[in-house]
């Protein structure tokens, strides 16, 4: 028997989250859902992949998060000639007191927030260098492992239309992103607001929203959000339903999906749902939190059939079909009652 978060603790958590959200919303106008997703991913220390057309503010959002959290921030522009050593760092020969020795020079990965801009433009070799960093929060060079500073976030962006000269991220690396969030366009009202409130599109200057202690407190509060067994069961059933070989999978999955979501996906949903619950002012996760976080957590983890891709199926649609097909409570009430 454990004690759940009190109403005061939940209120405190909401307050801390609201500070970050407000700061992001001040920088990126009209993208509240996108901001919420980003904040959720940060609260559970997950990596984020932002996909959207150029000029939608992806990079600005990531830069704003870095400033708001008061964390060290590095930006790496991924290009085809970028080498692994360029991001991890490497040993360089240094002369120290007449003795020359190799000293490890940390690369841009050694920061709390790393913006991997246009990550799909780097070669697979460089992309793979991110794998260990994202999963283990460490970098190994020449047999020597170096811990990365915590918290460590990789916020990557990629452009979905300029595919020439790009290297699609391998499934293993995609799986390490907590969310893949598609950055939507904005409507005319938002654009008007941008035009009237900003010169040359420069965002307003924002101050640090959270101290390091407050960030730790926020992490602690998110971790303390309770995940009931019934909701955990729902997450598991949703993930299981993405596998085409299962008898109870929806028809859309059987038709379009080649490989379903991994257990890491279920973990990601569970963790993100905690942040969503705290954001909603609850001490526990509810089914609605799962529905809210399942799409960005699952869509990039599904491997579709080639025929389905050709026929226009999109992972987001498959996830929507799964959520429609899987009931929140695994056994429905008898038909004769209402």
């Amino acid at each position, binding site marked *: 028997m454990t004690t759940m978060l*009190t109403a005061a603790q939940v209120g405190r958590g909401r307050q801390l989250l609201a500070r970050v959200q407000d700061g992001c919303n001040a920088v990126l106008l009209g993208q509240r859902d996108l901001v919420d997703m980003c904040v959720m991913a940060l609260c559970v220390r997950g990596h984020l992949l932002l996909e959207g057309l150029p000029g939608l503010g992806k990079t600005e959002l990531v830069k704003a998060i870095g400033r708001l959290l008061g964390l060290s921030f590095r930006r790496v522009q991924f290009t085809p000639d970028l080498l692994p050593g360029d991001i991890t760092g490497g040993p360089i020969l240094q002369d120290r007191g007449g003795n020359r020795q190799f000293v490890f020079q940390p690369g841009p990965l050694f920061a709390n927030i790393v913006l991997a801009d246009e990550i799909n433009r780097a070669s697979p070799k460089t992309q793979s260098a991110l794998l260990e960093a994202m999963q283990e929060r460490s970098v190994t060079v020449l047999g020597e492992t170096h811990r990365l500073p915590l918290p460590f976030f990789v916020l990557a962006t990629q452009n979905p239309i300029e595919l020439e000269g790009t290297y699609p991220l391998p499934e293993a690396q995609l799986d390490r992103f907590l969310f893949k969030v598609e950055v939507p366009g904005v409507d005319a009202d938002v654009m008007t607001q941008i035009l009237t409130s900003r010169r040359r599109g420069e965002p307003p200057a924002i101050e640090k929203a959270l101290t390091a202690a407050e960030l730790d407190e926020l992490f602690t509060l998110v971790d303390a959000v309770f995940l009931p067994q019934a909701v955990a069961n729902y997450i598991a059933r949703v993930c299981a339903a993405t596998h085409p070989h299962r008898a109870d999978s929806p028809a859309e999955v059987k038709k379009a999906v080649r490989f379903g979501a991994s257990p890491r996906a279920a973990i990601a949903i569970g963790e993100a749902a905690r942040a969503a619950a705290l954001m909603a002012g609850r001490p*526990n996760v509810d089914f609605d939190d799962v529905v809210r976080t399942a799409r960005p957590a699952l869509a990039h983890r599904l491997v579709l059939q080639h025929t389905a891709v050709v026929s226009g199926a999109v992972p987001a649609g498959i996830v929507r079909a799964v959520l429609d097909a899987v009931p929140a409570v695994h056994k429905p009430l*008898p038909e004769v009652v209402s």
Partner: protein
Amino acid sequence: MPVTPAAALAAFSRRVAAASFLAGAMQAVLVVSVGVVLAEIALRVLGLHLPPQPIWGVLLVPVLATGWWRQRREQLDGTVAAGHLDRRLGLQGLLLCAREGQVLEPAWSAHLQERLLALPAVLPRPQWKKLLVLPMLALSLAVGTALLPAPPAQAERPQLQARTAELEKIAEQLRDLFARGDLPAESRSEIEQKVQELRQKVDAGEAPEWRDLDQLEQQLERAELLAAASREGKDGGGSGRERAGDIAQSPTPAALAKAAAALAAAGLLDDMPAPLAAGLLAAQAADGTFDPKALPQDAEGLKALAEAMAKAAGQSLGELAQQLPPGQLADLRALVEGSGLQPGEGEQEGVGRGGIDRGPGHAALDMTEDAQGGADKALALPPGLAVPQQWVPIGDRRTEPTVQPENNTTAGGAGAGGMGGATWQLQLAPRHRAVVQRFFDQTTATGRGK
């Protein structure tokens, strides 16, 4: 009064269980009712009626069993019930946490209690319309069908009528036999008892089996045969062969009446001696049939009448095949054969006419127990028939005879003029000749055959 989460979940589960039980029971009521209706309709089609009886209470067993089975199948465990109730109460997982033993601070507890007060409004409600309409409709139909009055007694079926008529005919023959007083008491009581049993069956509305009727008829014929033999034994006159012929020539008044009708239809009554013809005409009814009771009832009178009728019919039996229907022709043929004459006897001999050259066969073709699998049952032959008198010894040797069959090089027979028409006379038993002759007569008439 505060409602605890456990109590709320129990109430929720009970309501679901009750609804499931009711749904299962109603499903069974529907099936059982439809079954009862179909059974009642089927029974009524068969002329039966099954009114409601206390034993019908057994039908409650499948109803209760199905309800119990469905309630077990749809039973909700605690987690599932909590999930449903949490969503219905809008608690957003708080009830799930409480059920899993999480300690809620007062604010959350108060919120939970506030929502739990709305429990009666969110408990599952049976969909009465979906649950009850069809089963109750079927149940009403079943009760109505069962309570309908019993169908009126059906008219006797033709089959029953036919069998009853056959039984009456047998009883009539039995009465004739009793009137003559020749039947042994043992046979009489046995036959009487069988007739009585069959009558009781008919009175109860059951159709007697044809097998029983045939058996009784054969038993009656056998008894008649024995009675005739007994009479001849008492008279003590004549040789064995003559007695056998006399017995065969003792038709019943009913048989003579039928033969007389055929004779009258053929216009042959005038060929009979005048007194006998007059007696027959006196027994003739307006519809052309003859009353058996108006015919002579004594054996001598019957014999004389039969012989005269046989003689009149036998002279032109072959020609009568064109005039009479098969039934009447068969009656006449039986009369002629029973009298010891052969069809065509007395007619002018000629091609295709045939003639008597060997006499009657030595054994009657009786379809008795032998034909029904009763070969092991002893059949007492009348005195005089045990020894075939028509057997003529042609030699007496000490060694076994040598059999050298020869082909019939004179196919067609001398009497037939080599046309094959007399072949049947050489190879067939006398009693079967009439059948063969009738066949050839028919084929001649229709242009087939020879």
